[in-house]
């Protein structure tokens, strides 16, 4: 029986005569239950259809992966037992661990794996890139399969072990078919089993320990190693109000808050029973994107002006996070604190001399021929982080003399409106700037960083930057030997700050908060719930 229940029952017992009755029902709860307040509601179950983090967190619960990154970000086999690369580097052969079983009792076969890889590779950028180098992926036996490349590709294991939108292995029956048709089942081979009957969308997601899971023998290390579920049951409780979530943690009604609002940390820190800890040491990068198709930001000079206007990332970070130790001003496009952190191409805007920056921005705007066009900034007000960014950008643009139209909308409207390419005279929904953020582990590679691709076909990510040279440098990356990658990234970043496809607005860390009755929380960039014990 856990603490809350014990406390609640104590009260009830004192208050009424039904104590005996309640004690009986309490005894039924003797199993250990881990209660987590997730970062958002689990809207969708299909980890390929959506890139939302909450869905891949669900994936980590119920599915397993072929490879996984250890705490040093090195890919280690997870479902794979042994693997080998041919002498020419073109054929990779893999053998699955024995004893892998889906939650429906069926064994995991190489057919399931191949189907899963192919579905993943139709949709997730890292997989799409790998397929461009791949001739075929085939099952060569019940538990063996091969990836046969058409030309050398240095990132096979990195792709299979990608942590941000991981390649989860589903049953062949689920994985065949179109990646855009959602998988609505949730049958994996991972350490926890999804309890569908108890799922209340918008409120509660329940998992139970998978008693048949065979973890690897090696100790857990990052996402790699043995994944041993140490609680009988996990409940995700969606608590929409940040303050209530904190009170529930203090009271012991929940055990972990995945992303507590940083402004509430002083309340949490006062409680000796709660720990606050950063497990994702890379963090998240806030960015904002301009529409490159319509004035004024169809002009590179105007985009450079923005670098100077918003050169001080401290204002963004203070408004979003407001907690110095978690804020990290950073101009490295591929994220600070990773091997690809570099200062290449970073200009004097980063020095943060406000007056000089404003002067320079004004001058660049003049050179760009800015004629006082209204700059439409989308402000999704119910999204705490994006709203904070939008308000700061609006002020910064006013300071350099731009006419700002800060439009308060909801996130759903932003998702729809940012698809609009037309100028304002053709479509009243036209936009100039929107804000978002990306996990450091997705932003940190030219392959998985979604907003950087700048091919001029208009099919790249919303905002549609167009610079063939930038794109050419970017495509050198997957072909390069590992020791050449850093040099490519430096050239890429230099070009990046000349053409400015988007603007980094600062990097930040998000701690988790948990009760000290928990132990064994792994230092993974994303919170995973295996290995956690509850006293």
């Amino acid at each position: 029986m856990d603490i809350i229940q014990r406390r609640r029952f104590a009260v009830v017992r004192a208050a009424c005569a039904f104590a005996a009755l309640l004690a009986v029902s309490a005894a039924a709860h003797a199993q250990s239950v881990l209660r987590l307040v997730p970062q958002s509601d689990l809207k969708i179950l299909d980890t390929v259809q959506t890139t939302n983090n909450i869905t891949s967190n669900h994936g980590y619960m119920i599915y397993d992966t072929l490879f996984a990154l250890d705490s040093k970000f090195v890919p280690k086999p997870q479902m794979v037992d042994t693997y080998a690369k041919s002498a020419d580097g073109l054929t990779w052969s893999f053998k699955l661990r024995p004893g892998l079983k889906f939650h429906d009792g069926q064994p995991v076969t190489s057919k399931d794996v191949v189907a899963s890889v192919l579905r993943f590779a139709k949709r997730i950028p890292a997989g799409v890139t790998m397929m461009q180098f791949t001739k075929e992926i085939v099952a060569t036996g019940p538990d063996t399969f091969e990836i046969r490349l058409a030309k050398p590709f240095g990132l096979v294991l990195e792709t299979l072990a990608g942590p941000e939108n991981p390649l989860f292995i589903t049953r062949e029956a689920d994985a065949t078919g179109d990646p855009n048709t959602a998988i609505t089942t949730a049958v994996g081979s991972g350490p926890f089993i999804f309890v569908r009957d108890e799922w209340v969308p918008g409120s509660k997601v329940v998992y139970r320990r998978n008693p048949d899971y065979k973890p690897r023998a090696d100790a857990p290390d990052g996402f790699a190693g043995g994944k041993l579920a140490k609680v009988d049951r996990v409940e995700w409780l969606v608590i929409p109000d940040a303050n209530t979530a904190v009170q529930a943690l203090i009271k012991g009604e929940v055990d972990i808050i995945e992303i507590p609002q940083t402004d509430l940390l002083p309340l949490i820190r006062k409680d000796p029973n709660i720990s606050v800890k950063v497990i994702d040491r890379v963090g998240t990068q806030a960015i904002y994107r301009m529409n490159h198709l319509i004035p004024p930001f169809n002009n590179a000079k105007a985009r450079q002006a923005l670098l100077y206007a918003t050169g001080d990332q401290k204002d963004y970070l203070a408004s979003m996070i407001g907690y110095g130790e978690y804020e990290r001003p950073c101009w490295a496009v591929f994220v600070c604190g990773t091997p690809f952190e570099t200062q290449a191409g970073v200009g004097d805007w980063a020095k943060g001399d406000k007056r000089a920056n404003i002067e320079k921005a004004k001058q660049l705007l003049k050179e760009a021929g800015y004629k006082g066009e209204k700059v439409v900034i989308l402000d999704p007000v119910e999204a705490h982080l994006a709203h904070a960014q939008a308000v700061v950008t609006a002020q910064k643009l006013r300071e350099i003399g731009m006419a700002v139209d800060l439009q308060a909308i909801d996130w759903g409207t932003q998702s729809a409106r940012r698809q609009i390419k037309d100028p304002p005279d053709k479509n009243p929904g036209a936009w100039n700037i929107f804000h978002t953020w990306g996990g450091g582990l997705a932003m940190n590679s030219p392959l998985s960083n979604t907003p950087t691709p700048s091919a001029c076909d208009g099919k790249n990510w919303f905002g549609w930057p167009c610079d063939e040279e930038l794109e050419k440098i970017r495509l050198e990356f997957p072909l390069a030997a590992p020791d050449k990658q850093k040099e490519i990234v430096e050239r890429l970043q230099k070009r990046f700050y000349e053409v400015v496809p988007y603007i980094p607005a600062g990097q930040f860390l998000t701690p988790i908060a948990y009760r000290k009755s928990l132990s064994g929380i792994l230092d993974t960039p994303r919170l995973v719930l295996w290995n956690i014990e509850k006293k």
Partner: protein
Amino acid sequence: MATDATATATAAAALPASRTRTRLGAFVRRHPTVAIGGTLLVAIVLASIAAPWLGTVDPIAIEPSHRLQDPSAEHWFGTDRFGRDLYSRVIYGGRVSMIVGSSVAGLATLIGLAIGLVSGYVRAVDVVVMRIMDGMMAIPAIMLAIALIALSKASVLIVIIAVTLPEIPRVVRLVRSVVLTIREQPYIEAATAIGTSVPRVMLRHLLPNALPALIVQATYIGASAVLIEAALSFLGAGTPPEVPSWGNVMAEARPYFQLKPAMVLLPGLFLAVTVLAINLVGDGLRDMLDPRLARRM
């Protein structure tokens, strides 16, 4: 008091000073609630109109390095999550809040009153009108607002429309319920019998009976409109949060309530005083309009 004088300025303008004072004194003695409520109301309205001259700074200028500060000589009410001056936001916020509150209360009450009177008195109309009202009530204000704003653009006008529409049926039902009770009273039947026209019956006999409940309802609508506007702002469907209103200043301060309660309570205090003032005036007006009640008090 200067503000007192303003409150009754129109009435007093033509009169000599000494008589003004006597008349004013008599008015205050006879209708203390109206005098107090009116004074408060006028003071708040004047303050929000005169906001630029009351020691305020630009209410939308941010200064993130000075965020979440406690009240000080520089920032009388402290600062919000963007380092904006809360005092300025509260004083300026009165403008939007009062426009929203009074427009919604006024529009919903007037339209609802008209429909309710007709619907309650004329049976043929009643069935159809009331079914339409049922339908209107079923659409949540939040949904209406999101859809309307998405169709055009966030603005005060849209908020007023979105909050007013679902309120109208509530007023209609209230007025109608009173009319239904009164309709069958002997004096109404008598009035109809001696050939008093329908509009006249309504204005003379039905309206005064509906008034007390209606005034209460109107003040409630006005106050709740201010709070609904806040909820809408929070969901991206209200007045833009950059433009301060009491509602959205409170809504934005929500996560900080336990750490800095003043961020919520100060705008809340302004709202409470305004609601109190409106209620006082409303009660007073009812007593003035309805001598039967005044005699009892």
